[in-house]
């Protein structure tokens, strides 16, 4: 899921222009810890009230695998200990989202997610959201053992409103609310279009976004700074395209449409941005040479 924290690039080549660090108000939490704190709160509240986890052990296994592998790979390839916040989010997301009676899928999904960050890189940037990659691979390749969280969370209004309110505030603070907002608006619009096209009740088309899986998807996965394009307008366009592809997949009755949509659109957008950056850099070089 989201990498709301910084992870060093594999072999720095083209670095995005660094914005000056924003001034942090006193007595506030470092942004790096906000997402981990939020997702931990969701996990604890969800489990203590509704027992959303398969088991503490499985979630712990996912987190330990994720952090452990990040530390080892970071040490090997960057010669430093990577801050574990990012891997923690990946691990905890896997622990919440993966549903399997076996232990091994939790470890495997975390391992695939983290390793993908170090293997699937273009021009020094990893292009897939790690947990989106891991979960998509697992539900595609190990469907007989793995499903994702799709029903648990009480299905009641109050917990949903609390998570939406808290999530919105946090995402707004992280300056990524526009991504979530555009996605939700697009999803709702497309839900009505699907209802019109298929004849299904509109409530059934809206239903998924009222569930817990989507709360994690819209607050943590699609907003991941490391695997979204940099410009605000580009982010809005990309997340809209995610909703478009998801709609197409939903018309084909694909259960994991949102994961697969992000799996396809996210990296494609990243590649386009990298290609454009490269063209700009070449053009700049040529201009300098002239």
């Amino acid at each position, binding site marked *: 899921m989201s990498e709301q924290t910084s992870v060093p690039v594999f072999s720095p080549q083209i670095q995005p222009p660094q914005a000056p660090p924003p001034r942090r108000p006193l007595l506030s939490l470092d942004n790096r810890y906000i997402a981990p704190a939020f997702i931990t709160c969701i996990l604890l509240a969800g489990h203590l009230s509704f*027992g959303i986890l398969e088991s503490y052990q499985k979630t712990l296994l996912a987190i330990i695998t994720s952090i452990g592998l990040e530390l080892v790979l970071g040490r090997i*390839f960057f010669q430093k200990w990577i801050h574990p916040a990012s891997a923690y989010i990946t691990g905890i997301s896997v622990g919440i989202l993966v549903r399997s*009676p076996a232990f091994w899928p939790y470890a495997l999904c975390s391992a695939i997610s983290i390793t993908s960050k170090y293997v699937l890189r273009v021009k020094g940037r990893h292009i897939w959201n790690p947990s989106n990659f891991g979960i998509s691979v697992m539900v595609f390749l190990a469907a007989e053992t793995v499903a994702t969280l799709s029903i648990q969370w009480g299905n009641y209004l109050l917990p*949903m409103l609390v998570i939406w309110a808290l999530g919105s505030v946090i995402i707004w603070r992280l300056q990524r609310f526009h991504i979530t907002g555009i996605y939700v608006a697009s999803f709702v619009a497309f839900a009505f279009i699907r209802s019109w096209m298929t004849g299904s009740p509109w*409530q059934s088309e809206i239903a*998924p976004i009222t569930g817990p899986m989507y709360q994690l998807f819209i607050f943590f996965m699609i907003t991941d700074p490391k695997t979204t394009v940099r410009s605000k307008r580009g982010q809005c366009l990309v997340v809209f395209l995610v909703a478009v592809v998801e709609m197409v997949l939903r018309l084909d009755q694909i*259960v994991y449409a949102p994961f697969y949509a992000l799996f396809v659109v996210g990296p494609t957008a990243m590649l386009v941005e990298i290609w454009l950056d490269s063209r700009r850099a070449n053009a700049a070089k040529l201009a300098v040479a002239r």
Partner: protein
Amino acid sequence: MTGNRIARAILVLFFMGLLATPFVIKRMSARKEADRSKFDAKTALARHGFYLEEVSRSAGINFVHQSPKLDSKLDPIMPEVASMGASVSIVDFDRDGWPDIYVTNSAIGSKNALYRNMHDGTFKDVAGELGIADVNQPGTGVSTGAVWGDYDNDGYEDLFLIKWGRPELFHNDQGHGFTRVTEQAGLPPWINANTAIWLDYDGDGLLDLFVGGYYSEDIDLWHVTTTRIMPESFEYAKNGGRKYLFHNLGNGKFEEVSAKVGINSRRWALAAAAADLRRTGHPDLFVANDYGVSELYFNDGKRFHEVGEQTGVGFAPKSGMNAAFGDILNQGRYSVYVSNISEDGILIQGNNLWVPKEGTAGDAVKYQNLARDFGVELGGWSFGAQFGDLNNDGTLDLYLTNGYISLDRNRSYWYDFSKVAGGNSTIIGDAKNWPAFEGRSLSGYQTKRVWLNDGAGRFMDVAQAVGATDIYDGRSVALVDLWNRGVLDVVVANQNGPLLLYKNTVTPGNEWIEFELEGTSSNHSGSNRSAIGAQVTLFWNGQQQVQEVSGGSGFAAENDRRLHFGLGRNPHIEKAIIRWPSGKVQTIDQPAANQLHKIKEVA
């Protein structure tokens, strides 16, 4: 630089290995599966010690269950809302020493059947002539299950008919007919239930009756006033039917006492079973709920105390559809099997096998779910399951039937189901918000599971190899030695499908023993005549196994009242200890193997 390249190459290989892992695991399990997937009687006997042969037609049984057709407002999702009702219960209604079979039908106007055992391998439906066939008449609802118990201790098993509609109690007139005594008994006019069990909760020698509601009892499913009849949540629903505990007053009347004794629940009950889990002499009550957690009620003889969370069985919500007890490790302790839903890639709840934790007992007993460790976790959309020693090797095996809705093989409703099930309560709770089924299947055409117990904590599925090859939408399973041969046969009731009789053939040499118990209740002393709640602990070859006479278990099912123990080869039986519901204890030293022991409670 070279080091970095090597590290990257190793990393890429490692990554590819990770991606290949699911394939490798899949191939390994597929190979194991292939080894066990071909049926051959000789091979099955040699490898597994038994095989099953479906003989319903040659046994004269040609029963096909029909689903109800409910209010047309529910038409779009009729296959789902009308997906239960097939049930089977075993009874020797005429006390001729041969078990008979009662099955329910669920369409308005359809007939239930009572198959009398003709002692020659065949059965004859006598429900019509005895007055318990035409029980699904318009305005009275339809049958969803049946349990037999001798509520008046006259020696003949009476019939309680579970319905979505008016529940019925039929008095058995000494095996010659049945008299409807519903009103005299004081039963309520309407319950939408799928489970009921007989138990003597207060030890007064009179059988009481627990009934677990599913849909709310104020709904007439043929005339609904609102489409908001669905569960408010897929896993936390508390808007189902109420629970009833009918206390037997001994004069043909029952008093509803559930609230008075501590049973207050509106979860969607699908299965219940009772057994003395703590050796207190009182039956505890386990309720498996759809759309929620299971409930376990400890019984102190006067009141019930819900201890689901405390004991560990009532925390993670699933879709409970079965409750069956079995001493699977031959330790004198019951485990509980609860079936749930597993559908590849969509919903992997996994079934639960609640095994008592080492070192815990009595009121402090804790259960852990060892279904995965024991290999009995994944059974598709699982319904009825029963424990029984199918190959007489001395350990309890597990028969599970499954399959929810088999319509168009090529089109699935799962996408729409998962969409709505994950939604908010205001959406899921209203039938009109559910997309129409339009002939699609939902976990249909599933293969069954026959899990053989190796006695050391592992079960192996041999269903295909031993001949349990049907793919009907199975609901209810009952185990019974139908032809008094010392083996457990299997009877399966299928929704919209035929009643199946799997005749069992066990390898010669594996021995057995059976007990038929009868209580001697009179004037509130002694045990109920059906001996429901009586426990037999058999000691042989340095091991022990406990079994209990049940007034209903599994899903909408009741096994043969006689207790069947497999013994393996060359058994040396030390003793059998019988603990009667009255508290009396009877010991039988060195009972002979390979015979049925008829035992009356000592006066």
